[in-house]
């Protein structure tokens, strides 16, 4: 291979599909390292603190698409204190200095400021796509900067961000010359948008395939927009809360009818049941449907819609659908691959119309199911066993029983056997979240059978350090382990320290890990950052704290080549 000209080697590398493959070939020899790094077009940084931004961009100066992830996953549930970190600034600044050809930036759980967006907009003349997921720290002013300066913008996708709304003007900053939009998602913007500006923008975007509106967009505006976008493939609706107003909805129905390419629907913010019949003509062609923001639709509305969606592959609903509704899904949606059932009541043991029966029904009707997120009132080992038998193709299995430590609803036993069946039968399982009453036994099963597992989420589970050790020793491909409120202590933390260098990160909160244990870990493993967050503010209190034997509230451990980060707030102690 070394006798081939570099262009040939580079060409061969272009066939490598994954980041890890490219990482591997770069280790073979210096020539390959050089060829690979200069030809790498897409860089994925799973933990923004694992490497210094400067180092990443200097290694890959010709990167076109950069993805960076910031806060740990449990930040989604308010377990990471605000101001923890995850700043986009250093990444955008480093890229601005070294990677002028950058075209796409994707960021998840990071803090992005308007200044950062301004810099982004001005630094990359070929910039095409910005995707921000669960980020915060910016306002519509930053979006205005992106709109006005990114002349070739194809994609602006804002998913579930916390955006400071400074008014509707941002949308008007797209110049008349901007005709390249393919995907626009501003569903998370809280306030009004200028409907005239929106209509004109859509009218001059012939390539628009995905459009997700926010709650403020009226039915009439939606109708006008859809009249211009017959090739739309993905739509997030605006306001559908109005009670039955025949003329508006009838017009909407007639434009929807012309959208023959429309495959995916979402939005439905508090949608009124009277809008549902107008969606019927679309149902037969839908592959994706998200009704999880419509608590106003009851079992009957939902089933009437879903029973017509014979091609559905992805469904997100609320538990209002109930077990009976899931039965209808099971009989109608034979191609279903992904199902998410969200709770409508957020109390710990709140009411949920969904139990193990719904899940069993789904599993027997939808044999292609591979991805599940299921919030429910109760579960049984029997049901989980049946589900595992029916659907051995699970890649992602996340089950959340609303009441922590709830046992098998029929037998009162722990749910060890049920989850054991899942890991045993679903040999391709990569992600697992568990709940309910669980002992060390379930971890034994996981360690033994879940050989492809990459991410594991544990809450209120296990009896002793042995539980965590089973996982640490058995799951060879484990990348992310996150644990809360479980009795794992220093023994488990220190039982297999070398493992942490093969993983992206470990999170432990409200467990039995002590300050001393963390210190030992940090001293044994210099390639890890061991971050401690305690309720007590200030490091001086932490030292006085009789000791080393005081428990650590929150622990975040990750491998890094960057050393201790310098942007940590004072409640974070890095050992």
């Amino acid at each position, binding site marked *: 291979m070394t006798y081939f000209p570099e262009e040939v080697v580079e060409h061969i590398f272009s066939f490598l599909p994954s980041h890890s493959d490219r990482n591997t070939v770069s280790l073979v020899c210096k020539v390959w390292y050089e060829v690979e790094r200069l030809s790498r077009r897409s860089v994925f940084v799973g933990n923004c603190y694992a490497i210094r931004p400067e180092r990443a961009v200097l290694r890959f100066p010709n990167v076109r698409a950069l993805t960076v992830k910031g806060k740990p996953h449990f930040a989604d549930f308010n377990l990471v204190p605000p101001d923890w970190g995850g700043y986009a600034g250093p990444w955008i600044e480093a890229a601005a200095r070294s990677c002028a050809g950058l075209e796409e930036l994707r960021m998840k759980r990071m803090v992005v400021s308007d200044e950062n967006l301004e810099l982004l907009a001005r630094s990359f003349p070929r910039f095409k796509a910005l995707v921000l997921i669960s980020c915060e720290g910016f306002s519509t002013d930053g979006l205005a900067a992106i709109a006005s300066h990114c002349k070739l913008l194809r994609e602006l996708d804002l998913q579930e961000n916390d955006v400071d709304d400074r008014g509707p003007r941002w949308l008007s900053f797209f110049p008349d010359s901007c005709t390249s939009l393919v995907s626009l998602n501003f569903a998370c913007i809280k306030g009004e948008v200028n409907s005239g500006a929106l209509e004109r923008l859509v009218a001059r975007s012939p390539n628009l395939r995905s459009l997700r509106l926010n709650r403020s967009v009226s039915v009439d505006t939606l109708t006008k927009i859809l009249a211009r976008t017959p090739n739309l493939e993905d739509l997030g609706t605006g306001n559908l809360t109005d009670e039955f107003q025949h003329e508006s909805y009838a017009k909407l129905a007639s434009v929807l009818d012309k959208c023959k390419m429309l495959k995916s629907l979402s939005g439905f913010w508090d949608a009124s049941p009277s809008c549902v019949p107008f969606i019927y003509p679309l149902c037969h062609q839908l592959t994706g449907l998200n009704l999880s923001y419509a608590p106003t639709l009851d079992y009957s509305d939902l089933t009437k819609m879903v029973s017509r969606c014979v091609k559905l592959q992805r469904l997100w609903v609320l538990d209002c659908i109930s077990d009976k509704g899931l039965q209808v899904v099971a009989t109608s949606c034979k191609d279903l691959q992904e199902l998410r059932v969200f709770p409508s009541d957020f109390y710990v043991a709140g*009411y949920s119309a969904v139990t193990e029966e719904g899940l069993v029904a789904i599993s027997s009707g939808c044999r292609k199911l591979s991805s599940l997120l299921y919030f429910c009132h109760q579960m049984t080992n029997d049901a989980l066993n049946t589900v595992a038998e029916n659907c051995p193709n699970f890649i992602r299995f996340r089950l959340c029983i609303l009441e922590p430590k709830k046992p098998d609803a029929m037998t009162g036993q722990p749910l060890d056997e049920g989850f054991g069946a899942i890991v045993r039968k679903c040999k391709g399982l990569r992600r697992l979240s568990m709940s309910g009453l669980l002992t060390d036994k379930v971890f034994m099963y996981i360690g033994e059978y879940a050989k492809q597992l990459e991410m594991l989420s544990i809450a209120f589970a296990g009896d002793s350090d042995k539980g965590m050790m089973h996982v640490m020793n058995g799951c060879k491909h484990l990348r992310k382990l996150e644990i809360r409120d479980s009795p794992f202590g220093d023994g488990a933390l220190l039982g297999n320290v070398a493992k942490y260098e093969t993983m992206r990160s470990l999170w432990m909160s409200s467990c039995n890990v002590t300050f001393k244990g963390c210190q030992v870990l940090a001293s044994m493993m210099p390639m890890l950052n061991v971050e401690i967050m305690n309720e007590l503010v200030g490091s001086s209190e932490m030292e006085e704290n009789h000791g080393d034997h005081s428990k650590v509230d929150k622990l975040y451990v990750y491998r890094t080549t960057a050393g201790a980060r310098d942007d940590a707030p004072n409640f974070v102690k890095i050992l």
Partner: protein
Amino acid sequence: MVMEMMIDAELRLGPPGCDVTVVQPARKKPASAAKRPSSVVRSEASGTDDHDDASPASKVQVVGWPPVRAYRKNAFHAAAEAASARTTAKKGEQGGGLYVKVSMDGAPYLRKVDLRTYDGYRELRDALDVLFGCFSSSSADGGGGGCQFAIAYEDKDGDLMLAGDVPWDMFICSCKKLRIMRGSEAR
């Protein structure tokens, strides 16, 4: 004789509905309730209800549990506020308990129950069983579903309906009065 024992006819001083405290089926508290992890936060609701410890599990809030993204929770919160503002504008009284009278065929006294304290039809049935003893096995004669009584209710239109057909949330909105009927009449 059996009826007298089952009916809780003990006279008490106190507001209606406080006898509901005995009703909740023995909800098993998690084994480690005594050493509940620090991430549990007691909801303030326990102070305002008149049956504070009867149904603690349904009102406790644990930080970050259930694991639902803040974005989703905020979306619902905003919607719920808007919705309750709409309904309080429409209806006069709102919030608090939803007390309805319960009568049982043949019983001399009526009772009152707060429908908001139950999660579903099963809990309601259990509650009525404790009050009236109508569903416990000792009163069954083994026929059909093994039970002589059915729960019926009077809805907004004044019609007598069999409970259980509509989702619970819809039921509590439309139920004005409960009536426990003899099975023979209900069929």
